[in-house]
């Protein structure tokens, strides 16, 4: 049997890329949706020691009772190693217990700042946005206080903008030296941006987004074209290893057979 899958969707690819980015034995604070799927996949493959944290209160559960439909749902709690509430989960994070925060957003800028609040003019249009999004939830808390964050996004030009309408979850702010530290944040900021087209990081100096790898079917050009601002393109951009047959099988048969998060069009 072939090692690599030849039939996978963009959403499946994003989950695989997210999963592979997670190191084993780290504490990973999981946002709702695709991050939960990616963590489950990582636990089932290379990361059995990953300790998931859910903002509603569950810490370190086994994710073997079906895909949670909510970060507060019953399936987040099986054999949990701690189970209080939102305050305790975010306090752990402020304290330094969350190695990784795994979040999404509707819109992102070159410094990894995310918008999940509103499209329209801000602040004038705050009370009457063009499009109202669900709001921060816990994403902005994770963005501030997890030691590093991994961001999952749909890669479309309208979502990647030099200037976003509203900063919900701070990345590197304006990219100036130590901007996060000076703002009072505890965590180090965005580590990776994983999209339907590429894996990106951030330049150490300028804190601007930098292409690291293209996903199967994409090129440096196709990624840049789908990005509403100029990416830093280093010389060593590589092609990301395609999803394996086993990874795709796990997503489809074990983790999200009803396609709650993976087959649907990704929304925020």
């Amino acid at each position, binding site marked *: 049997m072939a090692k690599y899958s030849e039939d996978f969707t963009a959403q499946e690819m994003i989950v695989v890329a997210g999963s592979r980015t997670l190191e084993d034995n780290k504490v990973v604070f999981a946002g709702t949706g695709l991050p939960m799927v990616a963590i489950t996949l990582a636990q089932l493959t290379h990361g059995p020691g990953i300790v998931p944290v859910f903002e509603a209160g569950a810490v370190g559960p086994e994710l073997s009772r079906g895909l949670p439909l909510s970060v507060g749902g*019953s399936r987040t709690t099986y054999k949990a190693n701690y189970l209080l509430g939102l305050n305790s989960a975010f306090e752990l994070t402020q304290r330094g217990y969350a190695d990784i925060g795994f979040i999404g957003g509707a819109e992102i800028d070159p410094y990894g700042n995310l918008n999940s609040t509103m499209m329209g003019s801000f602040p004038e249009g705050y009370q009457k946005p063009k499009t109202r999004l669900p709001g921060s939830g816990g994403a902005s808390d994770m963005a501030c206080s997890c030691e590093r964050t991994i961001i999952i996004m749909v890669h479309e030009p309208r979502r990647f903008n030099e200037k976003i309408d509203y900063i919900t979850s701070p990345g590197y702010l304006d990219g100036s030296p130590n901007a996060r530290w000076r703002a*009072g944040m*505890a965590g180090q900021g965005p580590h990776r941006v994983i999209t339907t087209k590429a894996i990106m990081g951030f330049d150490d100096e300028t804190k601007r987004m930098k292409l690291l790898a293209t996903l199967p079917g994409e090129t440096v050009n196709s990624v840049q074209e789908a990005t509403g601002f100029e990416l830093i393109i280093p010389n060593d951009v590589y092609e990301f290893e395609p999803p394996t047959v086993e990874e795709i099988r796990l997503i489809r048969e074990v983790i999200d057979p009803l396609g709650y998060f993976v087959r649907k069009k990704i929304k925020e």
Partner: protein
Amino acid sequence: MYWTGLSPDEARQYLANKDKSKRDKRVSLKEAVQKFVKDGDNIGIAGFVNGRQPIAIVHEIIRQGRKDLTLSYQSAGLAIEYLAGAMVLDESKNSIKRMELAYWAHEAFGISPLLRYLSERNKVELEDWSNYNMSARFKAGSMGLPFIPCRGPMGSDMLKCNRAVMIDCPFTGRPIMLLPASHPNVALVHVQEADIYGNCRIQGPLFTCPEIAMASAHIIVTCDRLIEHDDMTRFPNRISIPFFSVDAVIEVPFGAYPGNSHGVYYFDEKHIPEFRGACEKFRKGNAEPLKEYYDNYIFGVENTAEFINKIPASQILQVQKSESGIRLDAAYTVLG
């Protein structure tokens, strides 16, 4: 600085004068809502997204009609969507004036159609916070503190439109955010088990329920089952809300349906899309399905038992069967 609900000093004084005796607090849900939910109130909505939301209480509020409400919560789904649906159908009977929120949507079930409908028409005043912000604001309230510090979200645009204050920490010199306490007039809370005095035992994630309850002036509790007081106090470490905070206790089986009540029933994966779908149709211009939903499931029934009776039994059995949550720590006696 303005306060919605009670100011910290008002909240303290209110509670200091409150009767904290251990007495039977069972009333009907109708009476509880009549007595403790007023037009113009700031209402603390317990639960998290669609987990243990106070659906039964919200349905009763809608039946009675309440106007100019301020809703305070971290992340909510169905409870707010139901109140919003009642508002868009008849604003003269039910209305939301303001929301202090972190997130309103349904996670796996999709975004909130009526958040878009109401906010894009500027029909509700919004104050955005993060989940931790709202949770910590209730926590400050429950601790009797006027504010609580917090490390986020600094640099976010939320700070430009909410009441958070940035200061330099007097100990480290670094910037830190201060969040004003939230003291709702009334908290609406659904739990798995309560006793007749109001002691509550929460199974699974506590969300921000104890904090919301203890920050508020009044608390209405619905529970999936009332249990003997002695069964409650046998495990005092597991009591999440002590009796003296609670004003009214009502046994309402399926009081959080169609959402998840940990250890008792799972999300109804059919009914939530049914309701949400009607809201989405409303947003797109077709009010009829939403009107029918309300006439059938809310206005056409007297209480939650009648609501549940309209759901196919197979769905009810399914939400019980598929619930994977942790069951009770111990045996208990259900009050007859």
